[in-house]
């Protein structure tokens, strides 16, 4: 499992170490316990994350992107997203054992945000079943001819929904031009412009994906039409021979998740040997980072800022059938049916005397395999960036917490011995995410009452920032 990132260092020890080093850098104010605690937590977070980063940089996770925590520019993000979408296009030329390297029916990108490179490699290595084109229905009584006819009529990719509600009314402009800056309403605020850019980009990407797939579909169709003109056996193409079609689909099995029918062998869960098609398997992923359920015992959602970002967790996926943690599958390819990439030309495949699906042929294995077994493909390995995502979310919360601390401290500095005016705190404090959001109305509303306010706030803010920087520098040296 070369793609699974190394585990975080023991967090508690890291935390202890950081707290020691950072507390000295922070002004320890009497009567300010809450804020100080928060700062400690924030800076210890920074240490934890830096440690995690150094760890992952030495592993393969960092990959070509270098430091995965570095903020990517919008353009860079867009480029990566477009590259991902290109890898989701089903191409008939990328055929493996009669299936493909990209999924058939998933149109929503959120569902298929797996690492396409990892999945393609697994399929090429025959460690994960290829993405087969599913049959909507299946009947054992179909004759060979009927079956071949049905398989011949299968498209490369399911039809896309042309009108996605989320893209309704979003301009896409000329898709062949890469620049769409002019579509963005420049009278909007910066944040709104970013939002709009994102929306337009997604709508354009969706349209592009439709086009790219359409182009492949057309090529596929042309190839099929050309092949028809020649008698079977005379064309050496990537199209499957009739024998291959029949061998693949005559024993189709229903995936218990999507209820569609796929060629056998299919992926089996490592724990309870239940089947799952590759398209469903790649959609199973960890939940978004969240706080442990126990800490939300009351029905009222607690304030994010009040929670320790270190507690944020994300559990490995469970087997959908038996709930064993760390879901993984195994796939046993048919050795006599190695066609396409790293195999024989699909059109030259001839049926083997021994029908592949005799009972004796199915690997008999009792008991389950460990998630670490080299035959097992775990759910986590398809999204090797889960750890980075978790840390990023922790960092986001830590930043929020730091901001809240800064606000808190600055209020105390501004009005020593006084609480902030209750109306103001009710209006702005609980909902403000960033310091600037808060400071502007605050400073202006009461600017006349507290002339030194703005500068004091700034100074205090800088102190907090400095503390975090020191912590960063400090842990960088370690």
């Amino acid at each position: 499992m070369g793609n699974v990132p190394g585990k975080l260092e023991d967090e508690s020890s890291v935390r202890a170490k950081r707290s020691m080093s950072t507390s000295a850098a922070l002004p320890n104010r009497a009567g300010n316990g809450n804020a100080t605690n928060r700062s400690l937590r924030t800076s210890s977070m920074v240490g934890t994350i830096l440690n995690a980063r150094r760890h992952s940089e030495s592993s393969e996770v960092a990959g070509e992107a270098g430091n995965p925590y570095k903020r990517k520019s919008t353009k860079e993000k867009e480029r990566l997203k477009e590259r991902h979408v290109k890898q989701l296009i089903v191409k008939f030329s990328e055929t493996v054992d009669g299936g493909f390297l990209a999924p058939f029916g998933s149109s929503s990108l959120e569902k298929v945000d797996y690492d396409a490179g990892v999945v393609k490699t697994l399929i090429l290595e025959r460690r994960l079943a290829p993405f087969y084109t599913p049959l909507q229905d299946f009947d054992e009584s179909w004759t060979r001819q009927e079956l071949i006819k049905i398989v011949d009529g299968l498209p490369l990719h399911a039809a896309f929904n042309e009108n996605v509600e989320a893209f309704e009314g979003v301009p896409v402009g000329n898709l062949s031009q890469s620049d769409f800056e002019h579509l963005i309403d420049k009278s909007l605020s910066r944040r709104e412009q970013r939002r709009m850019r994102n929306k337009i980009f997604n709508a354009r990407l969706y349209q592009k994906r439709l086009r790219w797939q359409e182009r492949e579909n057309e090529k596929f169709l042309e190839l099929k039409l050309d092949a028809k003109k020649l008698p079977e056996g005379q064309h050496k193409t990537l199209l499957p021979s009739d024998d291959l079609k029949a061998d693949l689909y005559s024993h189709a099995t229903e995936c218990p998740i999507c209820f569609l029918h796929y060629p056998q062998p299919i992926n089996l869960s490592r724990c309870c040997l239940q089947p799952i098609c590759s398209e469903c398997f790649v959609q199973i992923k960890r939940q978004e980072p969240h706080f442990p359920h126990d800490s939300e015992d009351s029905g009222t959602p607690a304030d994010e800022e009040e929670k320790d970002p270190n507690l944020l967790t994300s559990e490995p996926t469970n087997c959908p059938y038996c709930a064993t943690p760390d879901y993984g599958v195994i796939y046993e390819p048919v050795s006599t049916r190695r066609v396409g990439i790293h195999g024989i030309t699909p059109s030259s495949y001839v049926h083997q005397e021994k029908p592949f699906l005799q009972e004796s042929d199915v690997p008999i294995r009792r008991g389950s395999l460990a998630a670490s077994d080299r035959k097992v493909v775990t759910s986590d390995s398809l999204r090797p960036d889960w750890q980075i995502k978790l840390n990023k979310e922790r960092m986001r919360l830590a930043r929020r917490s730091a901001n809240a601390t800064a606000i808190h401290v600055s209020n105390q500095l501004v009005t020593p011995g006084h609480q902030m005016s209750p109306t103001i705190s009710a209006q702005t404090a609980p909902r403000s995410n960033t310091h600037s959001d808060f400071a502007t109305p605050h400073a202006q509303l009461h600017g006349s009452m507290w002339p030194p306010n703005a500068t004091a706030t700034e100074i205090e803010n800088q102190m907090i920032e400095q503390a975090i920087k020191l912590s960063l520098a400090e842990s960088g040296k370690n």
Partner: protein
Amino acid sequence: MSKVPRSFRLLEELEKGEKGLGPESCSYGLADSDDIAMVHWNGTILGPPHSNHENRIYSVALECDEGYPDQPPKIKFLSKINLPCVNQTTGEVESDRFETLKNWKRSYTMETVLLDLRKEMAFPANKKLPQPPEGSTF
């Protein structure tokens, strides 16, 4: 794309409002937490900076009837405000004078309405309009 039915859509919005996941410049919630039909809602809009609305908090009442979200909600200012799309006697937002309601899309939410009203306040022609005393109501 599947159409999220009215009630589940409103529950999504409620959750977003309750958890404060939306932007900090507006908020909204059910007027009556017992109202299983979820028709009546309260909202607030924080006046945009660099305008006569700065630092003011406007209360509004929203009504999402059976047609929502295929049809826009009805919205009415409770706090007095001087804005061209707001009826000066009732506080109602007049849909033919407010683009978001006029060209309603199913993907719009109550948050869209509140944020767009805020934009309306910041609109160059509107931001320096004289405003009634803070705290007065319709």
